[in-house]
Each structure stands twice: as C-alpha cells, then as structure tokens.
C-alpha cells in the first residue's frame, strides 16, 4: 500500500505530541512524506487530544483522511472518542486494563459528548464501556483489536532500566507509539533515529524509549501480529524540512526580511513568534546583518501599533495574531492605511465567534480581514492553502506591503498552523525582495508627495537631513493635518487607487489558481480547504467525475476577471464552494465583485478540518442537484 494512516489519542499533557513527532520524524528520515495534524481542547492537562498522521511513499498528503489503519490510544477516553472512526481492517491498539472502564466514569469527557456516545452505543445495543465501544468497532466497522497490557509492559521497562514504576510511567505514551510504528512497518532502528532527533543529546531518554519500543516490538512479533505493508518511499535521498504551519511562516519571514515582530500570545498564532524568537540571532548571521527582535507586548493594540512604529523606521515588521487579537488591531490598521505604512498582520483563524473554539479551526474571518475598519483604505489580503504557499506568501506579504505602501493581511488558520509536514526545503532561487519606492529623502522631502501619482517615494524616519510627519488625520503632502476638500479628494482617492494599481499589476491567474480542467464541476475555495479539495478531485476522478478547483490566494485585490472567466466556463449548477464556515463567505465575495451566484456549498463548522472522503462524498451528492448545501461533520 502507498499510505499508512494512524490516529494517536490520549489526554493532553501525556506526551502525545512527542509521540507523533518521533513517529513522523522516523518516517521522514526514511524518505516518507508525512502529514500530521493535531486536535486538542483549550486545556493544559487532562482533556482528550489526538493526532492524525498520514505517511505516504509517493507524495505529500495535504489534508486529513478518514479510515485510519491504526488507532492507538493511551487511555480509555480516547476509545470513546474514536471507536466510531474505525474502518474495515483498522487495528485498535489500547490498554487491555481499560476494557471495563465505563463511559459514565470518565469525568473529563464533556457531558454533551458523553451523552452523544451513550446514545449511539445504547441505540445500537452496546455497553457504554470500552469493551462495548470496541465490540461496536469490530462488529459494525470491521476493526481488529490489539490489546496490550500497558502496566505489565511498564513493569518490564522499570525492571530493565532499574527505575521505579512511577518513573517508568512517563514512557506510557511510547507504548501506542511503538505499536503504531511496528504495525506500519518501521524498523526499531528507524524508530531510534526518530527518538534521537527528538531528544538530541538526552541519551537516557532515547534509551528508555527504546527499551519500551523493543519490548512492544517483541510482544507483537511474538504474537505474530500482521504488519501493514507500506511501499518503500520514492524519495531516497536529500532533505526534508519538517515543519508546522507556524514554523514555515516564521521561516518565510526570516527570508522575507522581517526584523521586527511584535506579538501578544494567542492560540494558534503564538508558536510562530516563538520560532522566530528562537532564531533571533539568525544562526550567528546577526553580527553581520542584524538579528530579529521579537517583542511580547502588553496587548494586541500595542503589538500592531509598535509594528507600525517599527515600519516607519524602515524595519520590515509584522505581527501575528488570531481573531480576538485582530479585532483589537483594527483601529491601528486604519492608521497604517491612511499613513501608507507597510505592515503585515499574519492572521491565524480559529473557531469563532468570540473565544469560540480557541484551539479548533475555521475560515470564518474572511470578511473581518477584508472589511473591518472604519473609513475606506486599501489593504491586500492573502490566504495560503498549504505550507509551500504559506512560505511564499509570508515573503510576498512583505513585498506587496512595501511596494504599495499599505497593510497586508496574511490569512492562515489553525488547521494549517498545527499541521506538521515534510516538504522539500524551499528553493530561494525565485525569491525576490522588493522594497518598492524607497528614497533617502533630503531637505525637500515630502512624505505624501503625490505629484507623480498615487505611490509616493518613501523615506525612513532617521534618514539624514530628512524630516517627515505622519498623522491619522487627513493630511497634505508634508503629512500635516488639512481639512481642505480638494486635498481630501485627491489623497483619499489616490490611496484607493493604489489597490487598483495592484489589481492591474498582480496577475489574476496567480490570485485565483486553477487546478485541473475537468468539465464536470468546479470547486471553489481558499486557504486550507485546498488539500482536501485536491484529494477529493482525485478520488472523484477515479470514479469518473472530472472536476477542477479554483483556489483563491489573493482575496484583495479580488481577481474579478479571472473569476468571471473561469466560473462562466461552467454551468451555474456545477460550481461548488467548499469552506469551513457556517454560512458561505467566498460566494458572497464573488457575487459582490462579479454578480455571479454560487448556488452550492459544502460547509463545515465543527471546528474540525474537512476530510478528503467526506468532501468527495458531498461533491458527488451535490452533482445532480440544482442547488444546495452539504454540511460536513466528520471528526471527534
């Protein structure tokens, strides 16, 4: 088989993330493409979390997919969350000691979830115990069970390593990890490589883990457990970059020249700032070229305000946040707009509104990014669909900000932020740094000199013999307040015209990228639906439905001509939106800009990502209807 999929489940804080990292790295070292996505509660310790991993021998999966080959869990609660996801042949690895645990006796499950699972099991005639759930998985889903006695394994570990049992318990997470590794065909050596990378220099931990792993491998071999046979990887040499969405944006910013990043901690944005901070010295390069200043401010208002301040001095500057933080930045964004300041806001969407589902995902902030702010001012809005795009867009955002002297919003989301993938290290061949119309200024300098058109040459605060003024009020070429109506007419219009110039200059095909040319239907989408849509297209092609995908990467300036051109190739009833939202947003935007109506949508707003199969199924269902909405709900 080409791909192995496994799901690791357990309580927050029990080492699940580490387990997934080790496993992913081990596979990556072997040359496999790995995709790993984490789902978790807004909680530090104790609530259920799980990780979806896909390991592929040929190419990088870009979305989660149902039908895991292995479900391996630390605790009883995980069984209740996931038994229903088992498919035919799925192996469920669990602690045999938990089989009699009752659903009702697990306090950390939320009552709604408990009731929901209860209802299902009871309706179908199963006990509300781990055993009941597992029986359901076996009888109704065709799962196979692989019970292990976690306690006795740990006892053996304790003996072997000469540590007390309670200390050996820290290796609990290694049991499902090792079992998954065994099942998906990794050798102990390959697994060791994974541990070694994860625990660089901490040999004791590596050894301890390897003790667990070899015990687990021993048991499974002994029991003759069948292993899945994943094809050898296509890729046999070279390097992988193993990065989360947060990481790749940070890397893009380093390349793109961001040297001032302000932030106020918020999920799921903060990790990007930590990655930047951890590399503030640019691996030593700072002595020569300057380092990165990552600054934790007192709130998001200060984050954006200080980033704007930094931009005025010439630093490429940005700030990273999520919905609640973005809301607080809106007033200052308008200041950047009227003052033509190049500043980038990296905006990770999460489940809203308000605090919403702070550790879950969504794509509901499109209009907030596009339209928030009083008064009219130009902004460019980019959205990335995967890690490669995120890298490029992080750089592009900076370039466009400086070229058109305006705020740029780079939209991402929790799905992407918390997905770790193996990608080819990006080539910098084609990367350019465009700083736009910069000038050294001089005694006659006027910051808002519009005599040559809407974009005025920009001098930096600090430029020798140069003085300039900025104000949030309407201003004259010098930057002083004026309320003169004629000046106002020009300045206000010229600011908006910059966006129109960008609209002329940025090729529309790059703003809405067409994948495929199937004539049966057209999916439209933006951001992190991309992976699932492309995979669904493949699945459907296999079933004889040939479609295409129009992927929006720039939402402002909106690619209206391109939209009209591509959409009108299809009958109205063949165009389908896919979006993580409760009411379609991109469709409204398309109507706003072109008058075209998108009549079909596939929506998901559980806070969980769209999976490939459910999407393919929904597209198929919609194909022979005139219009309609399909609502997706897969995932615990």
């Amino acid at each position, binding site marked *: 088989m080409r791909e192995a999929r496994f799901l690791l489940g357990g309580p927050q804080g029990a080492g699940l993330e580490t387990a997934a990292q080790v496993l992913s790295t081990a596979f990556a070292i072997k040359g496999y493409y790995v995709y790993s996505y984490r789902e978790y509660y807004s909680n530090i310790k104790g609530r259920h979390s799980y990780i979806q991993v896909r390991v592929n021998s040929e190419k990088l999966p870009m979305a989660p997919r149902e039908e895991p080959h292995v479900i391996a869990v630390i605790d009883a609660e995980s069984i209740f969350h996931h038994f229903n996801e088992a498919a035919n042949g799925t192996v469920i690895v669990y602690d045999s000691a938990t089989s009699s645990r009752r659903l009702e006796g697990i306090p950390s499950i939320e009552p709604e979830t408990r009731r929901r699972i209860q209802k299902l099991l009871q309706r179908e005639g199963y006990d509300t115990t781990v055993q009941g759930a597992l029986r359901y998985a076996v009888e109704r889903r065709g799962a196979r069970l692989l019970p292990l006695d976690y306690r006795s394994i740990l006892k053996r570990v304790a003996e072997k390593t000469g540590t007390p049992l309670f200390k050996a318990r820290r290796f609990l997470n290694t049991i499902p990890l090792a079992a998954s590794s065994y099942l998906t065909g990794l050798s102990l050596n390959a697994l060791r490589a994974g541990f070694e990378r994860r625990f660089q220099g901490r040999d004791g931990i590596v050894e301890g883990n390897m003790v667990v792993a070899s015990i687990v491998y021993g048991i499974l071999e002994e029991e003759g457990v069948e292993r899945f046979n994943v094809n050898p990887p296509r890729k046999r040499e070279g390097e992988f970059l193993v990065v989360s969405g947060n990481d790749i944006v940070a890397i893009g910013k380093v390349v793109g020249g961001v040297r001032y990043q302000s932030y106020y901690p918020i999920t799921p944005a903060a990790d990007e700032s930590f990655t930047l901070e951890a590399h*503030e010295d640019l691996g030593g390069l700072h002595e020569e070229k300057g380092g990165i200043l990552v600054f934790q401010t007192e709130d998001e208002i200060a984050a954006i305000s200080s*980033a704007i301040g930094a931009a005025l001095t010439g630093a490429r500057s940005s700030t990273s946040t999520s919905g609640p933080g973005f809301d607080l930045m809106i007033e200052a964004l308008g200041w950047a707009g009227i003052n033509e300041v190049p500043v980038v806001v990296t905006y990770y969407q999460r489940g809203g509104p308000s605090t919403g589902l702070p550790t879950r995902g969504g794509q509901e902030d499109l209009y907030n990014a596009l339209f928030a702010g009083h008064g009219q001012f130009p902004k460019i809005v980019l959205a990335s669909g995967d890690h490669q795009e995120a890298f490029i867009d992080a750089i592009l955002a900076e370039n466009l900000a400086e070229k058109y002297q305006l705020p740029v919003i780079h939209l991402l989301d929790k799905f992407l932020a918390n997905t770790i993938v193996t990608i080819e290290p990006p080539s910098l061949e084609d990367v350019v740094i465009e700083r736009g119309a910069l000038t050294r200024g001089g005694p006659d300098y006027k910051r808002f000199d519009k005599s040559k058109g809407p974009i005025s040459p920009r001098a930096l605060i600090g430029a020798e013999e140069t003085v300039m003024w900025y104000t949030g009020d309407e201003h004259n070429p010098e930057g002083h307040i004026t309320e003169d109506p004629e000046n106002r007419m020009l300045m206000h219009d010229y600011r908006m015209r910059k966006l129109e110039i960008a609209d002329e200059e940025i090729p529309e095909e790059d703003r809405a990228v067409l994948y495929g040319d199937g004539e049966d239907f057209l999916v439209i989408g933006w951001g992190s639906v991309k992976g699932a849509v492309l995979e669904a297209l493949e699945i459907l092609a296999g079933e004889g439905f040939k479609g295409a995908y129009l992927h929006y990467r720039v939402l402002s300036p909106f690619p209206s001509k391109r939209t009209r051109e591509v959409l009108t190739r299809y009958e109205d009833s063949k165009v389908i939106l896919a979006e993580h939202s409760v009411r379609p947003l991109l469709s409204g935007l398309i109507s706003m800009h072109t008058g075209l109506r998108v009549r079909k949508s596939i929506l998901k707003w559980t806070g969980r990502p769209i999976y490939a199969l459910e999407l393919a199924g929904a597209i198929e269902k919609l194909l022979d209807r005139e219009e309609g909405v399909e609502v997706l709900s897969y995932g615990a």
Partner: protein
Amino acid sequence: MVLRMDYKTDVWVDWCPGCGDYGILAAMQAALKELSLKPWETVIVSGIGCSGKTPHFIFANGVHTLHGRAIPFATGIKLANPDLKVIVNGGDGDLLGIGAGHFVALGRRNLDITVIIHDNQVYGLTKGQASPTLPAGAKTKSLPKPNLQDPVNPLELALASGYTFVARGYALNTRHLANLIKQAVQHKGTAVIDVLQPCVTYNDLYTKDWYEKRIYYLDEDPEWDPVVEKPEEAPVKLARAHEKAREWGDRIPLGILYWDKTKPSMEDRIEQRLSSYKKIPPAKAVIEEAGKPAISSEDLYRIFKRYIVKIQG
C-alpha cells in the same frame, strides 16, 4: 522645505489663546535646541487631543498617532531604531485614561523614551469632559454635573509602574520645564514629566492663578535629592518620592521626584541577549542584496537546521 534649527514649522498653532500647551511647546523647542538634537534623529510621537497636535508644530519627525496609543507606536519606533530620540506628548485622557494600560507597561520596560503628560484635567479636544486627573466632585464649567470618579495621580502611577525618571513641570514656567525635558531626554531609561497645563477654555478650576499660588520648586530645597546612584538607595528615595507625589492642595511640588540611574535600559537588556542589537537594529538590518534575500539557501539550512531531516533511505 528648509531644515530649521529653531524647531518651528509653518503650521499655524491652533490652540486657544492662553492655552498652557503653548508653554509646553516652547519648552520642548528650547530643550531640543539646547540639546542640539538633530531634527531627523528626533521623533515626537503624540496621541489624539489638543496635545496631540504638538508634533505638527515642531520641526523634527512627527508621528501623530491614535488616541491612547502614542506609547506603543513610540515603543516600536525606538526598539526598531534605538539611535532615535523619542519623545511622547499626550493628554491626560490619552495617557492615563484610554492609554493607561500602555502607560503601566512602559514603566516595566525602562525603554529610553520621554513621556510628557499634558495634564489639564479635561478632555480638551472633545470639549471638556472630565479627564482621569480631575478630582471627584469637581465641576468645571464644561461639566453639567460634578465629576463622579476619583482622580489618578500620574506620579504615583508612574512610580508604581517602575518609571526611572519621574518629574512634574508647569506649562507656564517654560524655562523650568525646558530644563526638566532636557534632563528627561538625557536620562537613559523611561522618563515621565507630568505637566500641569491650564486649559483656559474648559477648566476654570485649575487656572494659572490657582497654580501660581501653590506651586513651589523642589530644586530650591538643597536637601532634596531624588537621584538613585546605587540600587540600595532606591527604597528610601522611592518612598520619599511617593510622599511628595501625594502632596497636593496648598502646596504643589515641581521638579524631579525620582531619578533612578541604576536600572539597565530595555536596549541594554536586549543587547545582552542579542549582541548586535545596538549596532544593527531592525531598522538597519541588511535584508536584501540586489533584490535577492540576504539569507541564502545555505544560511537557511544553517539557521533552521533543527527542522531539516536528512533522508537516510
């Protein structure tokens, strides 16, 4: 435009005749001149309010920001280019009302910025509502009813927040104020000057007359020594500063209440972490060469090596 060393611009000063802000403006211009600050190395950052217009009247870089946000804008400017001299002018409403959170945060940083509070007890530009420094029960002519809320004492708040240079000036004693500003600007750390500023249009309680009967100068007292030269001196001098800060009513002290020279500035702390910081701050970083990123592919591999996995198929 010709560069001007009198620090004046052509912009018409549109404050009300008699406004205390004229005195603050004159003091700032005098201080800049006497310190020979280059206009292009100086940045005046302001909020919104009558006070917020100040930068337009000063020939130096001016950044007239948002209501309450002068401090965070100034923070970004200074952090990105620590060679700049950064002075914040804000109203009492601006800095101590909507901006109080930033005011407190700045105290925790000791960033080398000077903050000048135009303390007129009212929201001037919105026509005379009570500002956070107006006492409860006070009823200026612009208020329909007496003020409901207690005032905050800017000096106490500054001391509690960690400001290392805390002073009070009076708008209509330009000479004295100019000297305070000079010292504040020269101080390596965060300085704040609360400037008593009569608002002739809306505030008929705290007038020139009222003040001039009460103010006295701390530096006329040879005993008064607010300067902390060694960290051990701080507790006692801080307690004395608090006491002076609370003095209000019949006698109102002007001058420096507290000046701690021993605390490292934010810039110093950053430099300790990132040794190149002052030499090549963010504003001066080299980020491209001929349109190509200054970071090469090899650099990228080196910097982010922890993310690189070598395939050992």
